[in-house]
């Protein structure tokens, strides 16, 4: 029995070690130094189960950061120059994401209108209406069109330019003010623009279920595809809005960490 137990223990030890070694290899390269303690600590962090969970969580966090770029600006405590570059890249991606989102919303509006019969009186309002409403809703948390950069000047060092860029980005993303009337209008516009994505597919579904086909070209798969597209855009709308807020907060933090622009250089 004793011999058998020893063999089992040895086997477990080898298996555990193998799992730990495999898990350690799967850790993201920039987080390897986080795992484990000193030799005398006999840390729980190196146990196979803990390591596997850590690997999963670390990769999940990494994936989330790549999906929400502002979170990566301060991650890993990068040097100032890297941070500046990350902030600039983040603003560019947010700007691009906003434009692409509006284009995708326009495409969905067009696809939805195709479901209606040509003689329908709803055709014009549902073609021309949704996009301006969505644009105004987005304008509440993206207060500019086009990423107007700060022009290079020989009188400005890079930090000064960065400070001005941060001010500009904060003004676009997050003005810090709150107005109850504006908040109500914003919420209403957001709700309407999201509802308009689903209006025509729901209308067509109701007609289908009443055995009245709106148009000969309408199929179930087409309607389902529009539902899926609308659900994806709803998720992206919420995500872009949240990402803009996070970015605004981080830009503000960066701005506070910079010296005021009026501080003399020798201060």
């Amino acid at each position, binding site marked *: 029995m004793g011999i058998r137990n020893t063999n089992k223990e040895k086997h477990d030890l080898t298996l555990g070690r193998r799992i730990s070694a495999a898990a350690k290899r799967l850790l993201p390269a920039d987080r390897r130094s986080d795992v484990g303690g*000193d030799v005398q600590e006999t840390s729980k962090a190196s146990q196979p189960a803990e390591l596997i969970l850590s690997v999963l969580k670390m990769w999940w966090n990494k994936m989330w950061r790549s999906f929400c770029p502002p979170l990566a600006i301060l991650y890993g405590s990068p040097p100032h120059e890297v941070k500046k570059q990350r902030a600039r890249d983040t603003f560019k991606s947010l700007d691009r994401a906003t434009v692409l989102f509006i284009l995708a919303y326009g495409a969905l509006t067009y696809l939805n209108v195709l479901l209606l019969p040509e003689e329908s009186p709803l055709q014009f309002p549902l073609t021309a209406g949704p996009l301006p409403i969505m644009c105004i809703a987005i304008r509440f948390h993206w207060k500019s069109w086009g990423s107007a950069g700060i022009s290079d000047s020989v009188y400005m060092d890079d930090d000064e330019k960065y400070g001005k860029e941060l001010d500009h980005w904060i003004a676009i993303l997050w003005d810090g003010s709150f107005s109850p009337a504006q908040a109500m209008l914003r919420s209403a516009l957001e709700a309407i623009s999201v509802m308009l994505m689903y209006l025509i597919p729901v209308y067509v579904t109701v007609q289908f279920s009443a055995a009245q086909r709106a148009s000969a070209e309408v199929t179930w798969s087409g309607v389902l595809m529009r539902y899926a597209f609308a659900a994806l855009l709803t998720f992206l709308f919420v995500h872009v809005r949240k990402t803009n807020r996070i970015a605004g907060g981080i830009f503000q933090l960066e701005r506070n960490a910079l010296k005021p622009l009026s501080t003399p250089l020798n201060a």
Partner: protein
Amino acid sequence: MGKSDSLGQFEQLVLAAVKKIENAYAVPIQAMVEQVYGKRVRFASVYTALDRLEEKGYVTSREADPTPLRGHQPKRLYTITSGGDGALRDSYDTAGRFRELFGANPWESGTQTKKSTI
């Protein structure tokens, strides 16, 4: 930062451990959080909280020089930033006001009242 960037309970504990421990790294942070929390704490949760705190700018990290104690592997050491210190202070003040509102231990007196009525 905005409302969404306020500290969660677990983040508070991790940030407090980073402030309290000199040369804080994941292992002693986990041990302290587990001791204060009174429940088992997974390392994965500690790493996630540290990631989040770093993303919010509340802690900074750096790799220490490798030591023979760790098989010549470097450690990642965490330091609290002024922003993190401010956020922790806000949480501490809020907890203080909460305590003032309820007194020393409202549950103890509640139990006594219940007992006395029985």
